[in-house]
């Protein structure tokens, strides 16, 4: 007579093997996906070959002349919300794919644009706030800064400021 335990084990083996095959197939899919992405996508650094400069701008009535880098970073992450001279800080960002934003983010916020976006996703979905508005062009940023007395933004070095003031970063 056959041992029923043996029969049960024998039945389980093919099932287990099938699961392992599926797991291997998924792992292979993972590796293939990664390889395909690496091959298909151009290196990120290649997109920023030209030197980029930017200026931090504020409303003409803002009395500040210089700004600490840390204060600027905390303002754009909305950790600090008030100017030292009073009034609410209203930061404004460029769109995530802007090279100016990339440069500003790396140098002032000291995080990549993607890391900053992750930060804002955490804030948004945990109910702790909303990110600054993202505008499409330097001109729109200048327009916003001129309209809002508490505004702070950044634009490329050759943008016409139309009266907006530049802050020196310390």
């Amino acid at each position, binding site marked *: 007579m056959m041992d029923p335990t043996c029969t049960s084990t024998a039945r389980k083996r093919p099932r287990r093997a099938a*699961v392992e095959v599926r797991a291997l197939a998924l*792992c292979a899919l993972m590796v293939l996906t990664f390889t395909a992405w690496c091959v298909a996508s151009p290196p990120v650094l290649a997109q920023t070959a030209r030197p980029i400069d930017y200026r931090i701008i504020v409303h003409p009535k803002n009395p500040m002349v210089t700004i600490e880098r840390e204060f600027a970073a905390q303002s754009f992450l909305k950790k600090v919300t008030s100017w030292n001279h009073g009034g609410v800080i209203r930061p404004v960002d460029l769109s995530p794919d802007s090279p100016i934003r990339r440069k500003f983010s790396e140098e002032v916020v000291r*995080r990549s644009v993607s890391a900053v976006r992750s930060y804002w*996703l955490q804030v948004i979905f945990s*109910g702790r706030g909303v990110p600054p508005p993202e505008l499409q062009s330097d001109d729109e940023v*200048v327009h916003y800064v001129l309209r*809002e007395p508490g505004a702070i933004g950044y634009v490329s070095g050759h943008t016409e400021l139309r009266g907006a003031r530049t802050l020196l970063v310390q």
Partner: protein
Amino acid sequence: MRSDRVLRRTGRGAGGIARIGLTLALVLAGGASARAEQPPAESAAVEPAPGETAPVEPAPVEPEPTKPAAVEPAPAKPSLEESARARPFRDSPLAVEVHGFVSQGFILSSGNNYLGNSKRGSFEFNEVGINFTKGLHDRLRVGVQFFARDLGAVGNYAPKVDWLYLDYRFADWLGLRAGRLKAPFGLYNEVNDIDSARVPVLLPQSVYPILNRDILLAQTGGELYGYLRMPPAGALEYRLYGGTLFIDPPVAQPPLSLKSFQVPYVFGGRLMWETPLDGLRLGGSVQQLRFDTAYTLPGMPPMPPSEITIGIPFVLWLGSFEYAAHDLLVAAEYGRWKADVETTIGPASKVDTVVNERYYVMAAYRVSPWFYPGVYYSRLVENVDKPMHRDNYQNDLALTFRFDLTTHWLLKLEGHYMNGTLDLAPALNDGTAKNVLKRDWGVFFAKTTAYF
């Protein structure tokens, strides 16, 4: 009687929060549509809506009209196209922020079922949420998030108010929130169910258990918070909260019947020091809460029924380290959670103390804007005073790949090597006891999330 009232109140409380949330969402949505139909006068002057007739010369915007115009620099005259694109600014008092996400996951495990019937592969791993946030004033904000999920036998798409708050920020160093608030415990508790806001599919389960979401994630009450700059020593962020939890009562095992269940309090705090080294945060979290449960045990005639009460005060603490600079993330947390189980049966009572140990180390590096791999090791010990049998610990080594396919869509692939059976549920494994389940097992996750 008091307990009955508490139970009834608890039921009403949860429903009440849902009703308040729905009302708030309708009000917010109403505000949004009202703005669309009737723009404020100031906006209308400089920002004509698309399709409207543009003024011949939009009036220049004076930040302070009382000052003489001569000393004002000439304000920009935006083109109609510029203005239309830029409107509405999020900081506008009438703007409503709407964000949401939809996730679909897949779980496949070897050896044991985990979170669902995962040995044969399970798609019961979904999340959906939407939130509305509105600034009523420069310093006053309200918001609500609705959330539903299905994770094996948990959730079943029952919609819940995830958070609901009224937030007034007096100054950077002092703000006040009230409502149903996510609990700031550790680095990532508040985003435990937000796939788009983290690298791995599963956060380290030793510290952020996904199945205890209802207990740990949010509390209903108030919170004080603030951010203090201390140059050149960095900055301090503090959050103090207190309130209660509205959670489902435990299921009584026959012959016991549940008489009452309440959470008399939950309170805690988190202090984070942002060090002068960019991206380095150090901090600690503490939380204290208590569960009071009463059961009735039917007596054998002529003995009357007796009452069993179980009171469990919990004390949870966690130390946190995070270095997040440029594209690198390194995080580690260590904590111990202590529970004193006070059982009273008639005149007799006893106290059993259980101390968990929980820690993890995680690293992730964003190789490119679309590819973000990470790895972590996590260990959970249920009772540090018991022998280290397989059912008393759970070690987890995870490798995760996050692919940001577009700015609003991501895919994650993640593999775990598990050692130990503490995190497993016998009910999902044909009732097999944890000390018999397979000690070494694996689990694979695939998850995709769309968000905006």
